[in-house]
């Protein structure tokens, strides 16, 4: 069984069937997208790591009603990208994943400085790309020139 | 102490003036030569704007350097910082006193000529350390410390190689050594010593692949990071003049000095032979610089202590045995 199928099984058992949607045609570039509550985030990432995945990238999305963190993970086999999404409200903090994947160290620093999402337990919460004394969060939709500010349902509904 | 009458003094003073003039001209020429050689090896022409074939380029650079502001870092050592470049340059000039350009063109044919040159070349190491330390800059200090370690390590096989030649001739006087080569140059009789000498000479003058002390891509500019204007120029003058001296010594010790090959003079004056051979050796050193990457510092030290010194020691012992029993 390929890594990705093993992973989908494990995710389904951990998060429930309707939190995981699978798309074998790779339409959106991922073979499956799973939504996890913040409490189970580190556990889910640990399962990914044990199955041989690596953290490709991590980013956040800012909506009017909520913020969402998207993790993209991949392994060294063909067509195996999976995404893991966590919904956090504005001002809610999320446990850090840098204990599981060291790559998350820098990725979380970047998400924190651009979106203001705090990561509990992060060993080194400095700014990565912005100057050290920057106290603004540029990629939030209430900063600077913004073209559109929508709610999550408008895009993913 | 010989007789010092009037003609000796005149000879000394004239010699000094000629030495100073020659070393400046030589440095001028060598800077131009280096840039041309570098250019052509790198598929480009090198300087060609200023003067025919860019010959006057060095003069233009010299004028530029003289006109620059001499910047001293605020926390640099007030006394040592300006003195260090002068200290680097002066010992090198002493070497010209004993070089055998031709049978009657030696300024002072001392009977410890070889010893004099190597004794004074060690001074420049001290001056480099002084310059690096006085700059109050971590990069400069790192460069200076590395330079000292490298120089000390490569002095030893250098001197051992030279000793092999001295053992064969039984004299430290340059004219004797050159006269002993009027049939066969010592490079044929002592090839190992010759090659060891050339490698160590490259290391002594801080040239690539041994140019860690001034490694541009690692330490910005090594021990002369903080120097600007003519002080920087002096470091470079010292390096090129030093290069000339070590190649001239190599010519005298291994390549026959003022003699032609196998004793055939072809009616060319000795001084021309000497200069041609020296400049060919300088060209080879430049060629090596633009071909090879740099050794890492510990590999450099390993190479000296574990390869060069045992080889040169073995060579010396073999020479001693041969000289004694043959």
């Amino acid at each position, binding site marked *: 069984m390929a890594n990705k199928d093993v992973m989908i099984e494990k995710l389904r058992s951990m998060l429930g069937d309707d939190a995981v949607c699978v798309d074998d045609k790779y339409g959106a570039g991922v073979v499956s997208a799973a939504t996890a509550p913040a409490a189970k985030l580190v556990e889910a990432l640990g399962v990914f790591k044990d199955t041989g995945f690596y953290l490709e990238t991590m980013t956040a999305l800012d909506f009017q009603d909520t913020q969402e963190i998207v993790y993209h993970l991949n392994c060294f086999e063909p067509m195996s990208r999976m995404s893991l999404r966590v919904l956090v409200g504005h001002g809610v903090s999320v446990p850090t994943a840098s204990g599981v994947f060291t790559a998350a160290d820098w990725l979380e620093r970047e998400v924190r400085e*651009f979106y203001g999402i705090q990561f509990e337990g992060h060993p080194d919460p400095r700014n990565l790309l912005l100057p050290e004394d920057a106290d603004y969060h540029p990629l939030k939709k209430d900063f600077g020139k913004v073209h559109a500010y929508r709610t999550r349902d408008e895009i993913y509904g | 102490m010989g007789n010092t009458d009037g003609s000796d003094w005149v000879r000394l003073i004239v010699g000094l003036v000629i030495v100073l003039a020659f070393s400046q001209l030589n440095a001028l020429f060598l800077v131009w030569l280096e840039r041309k050689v570098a250019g052509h090896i790198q598929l480009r022409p090198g300087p060609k704007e200023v003067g025919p074939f860019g010959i006057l380029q060095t003069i233009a650079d010299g004028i530029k350097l003289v006109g620059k502001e001499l910047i001293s870092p605020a926390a640099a050592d007030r006394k040592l910082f300006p003195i260090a470049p002068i200290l680097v340059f002066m010992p090198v000039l002493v070497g010209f006193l004993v070089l055998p350009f031709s049978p009657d063109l030696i300024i002072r044919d001392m009977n410890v000529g070889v010893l004099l040159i190597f004794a004074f070349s060690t001074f420049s190491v001290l001056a480099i350390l002084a310059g690096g330390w006085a700059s109050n800059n971590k990069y400069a200090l790192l460069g200076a410390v590395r330079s000292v370690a490298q120089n000390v390590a490569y002095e030893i096989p250098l001197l051992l190689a030279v000793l092999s030649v001295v053992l064969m001739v039984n004299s430290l006087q340059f004219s004797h050594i050159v006269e002993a080569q009027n049939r066969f140059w010592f490079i044929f009789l002592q090839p190992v010593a010759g090659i060891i000498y050339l490698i160590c000479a490259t290391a002594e003058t801080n040239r*690539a692949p041994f140019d860690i002390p001034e490694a541009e891509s690692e330490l910005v500019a090594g021990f002369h990071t903080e120097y600007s204007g003519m002080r920087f120029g002096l470091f470079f003058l010292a390096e090129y003049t030093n290069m000339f001296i070590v190649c001239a010594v190599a010519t005298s010790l291994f390549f026959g000095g003022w003699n032609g090959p196998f004793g055939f003079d072809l009616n060319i004056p000795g001084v021309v032979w000497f200069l041609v051979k020296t400049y060919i050796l300088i060209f080879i050193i430049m060629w090596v610089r633009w071909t090879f990457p740099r050794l890492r510092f510990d590999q450099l030290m390993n190479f000296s202590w574990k390869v060069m010194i045992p080889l040169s020691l073995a060579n010396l012992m073999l020479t001693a045995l041969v000289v004694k029993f043959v």
Partner: protein
Amino acid sequence: MRSMADQFREPIVERVYTLNLGPQHPSTHGVLRVLLDLDGEFIVKADPVIGYGHRGHEKMGENRTYKQFLPNASRMDYLSGLLYNHGFVLAVEKFAGIEVPERAKYIRTVCAELNRISSHLLWFGTYVMDLGGFTPFLYAFDDREHILDILDRVSGSRLTYSYCRFGGVCQDVDAQFVDTTRSFLKRFRSRYHDYDNLVTKNVIFIHRTRGVGVITVDQARQFGVTGPNLRACGIPYDMRKIEPYEIYDRFDFEIPIGTKGDALDRYRVRLEEMEQSCRIIEQALDRMPGGPFWNEAATFKVRPPKGEIYFGFESARGQTGYYLVSDGTPYPYRCHIRVPSYGNLHVLTEVLRGTMMADAISILGSIDVVIPEIDR
């Protein structure tokens, strides 16, 4: 002035000192600052500080239409500008369902592979120059000039391209393009032997790179290292074979891999990749069909449906990804770019520990980071 004895009486408290491999340094590629804690010659801790080149591309991505973002794409990693441009165009085409004619696909592949070769050539020149060998730099740049001339003639730019457009390319290529590319390939292949002889077999070079900066597979997985650095560890992971996009599945080429993951392996992998790119270009030139070079029916304002897409492709440095979220308008809602140099630089915090200062330069060079793409 204090006496000399006074100066020596101060106790020496720490052996570890901090050296700043500063933003202005001949060997850091782009504006990178590495804070090194050194114990003599050995590095105890390495902390890269980046962000000097942050230009806000992702914020710009939300305020520009997809078409207006095209120039931004190649300016992130300007050394493989055409590859980024190509990748962005592919991502949007997949997202919005735009058809591309066959001829355009072949042209884009040829240009992308040429760009890959030019990026690797620049890396090769600067890497050997960092190690002290000044000459291969100029030879590599000479070859690179030929590539830049070819691409300049066909696209109008030398470094940052907007040649690939949604639905094809903006200008057709003619017979001179094909001829010049073929003659370049022939010349490059003979130069390739020169590089091998001058550098790869050079004893000093091998001493500087063998066993230096070993990245284990585990470290690669922890930090997200991709590209030639990962392939040097022995894993044949190349997006052109793993998730074939465009027409890469029609060509016959290999993925060079190394065994030990040290700097020498990384060097060899990249050198062989250049050769494999030559193979792809040859096959593409042989099989290029005629026909239109641009899909004229493509809409003027690209309007992808609501949703998101993540498109991963292989740039010169590793796996790059465009993550686009669309709300149905011509402006993206979120445009995130996953850059390979991120993980490649991050892994240095672990790899540099315990190495010597001169090795740090060698490792930095062999990783092939371009800082502006991290900074975006």
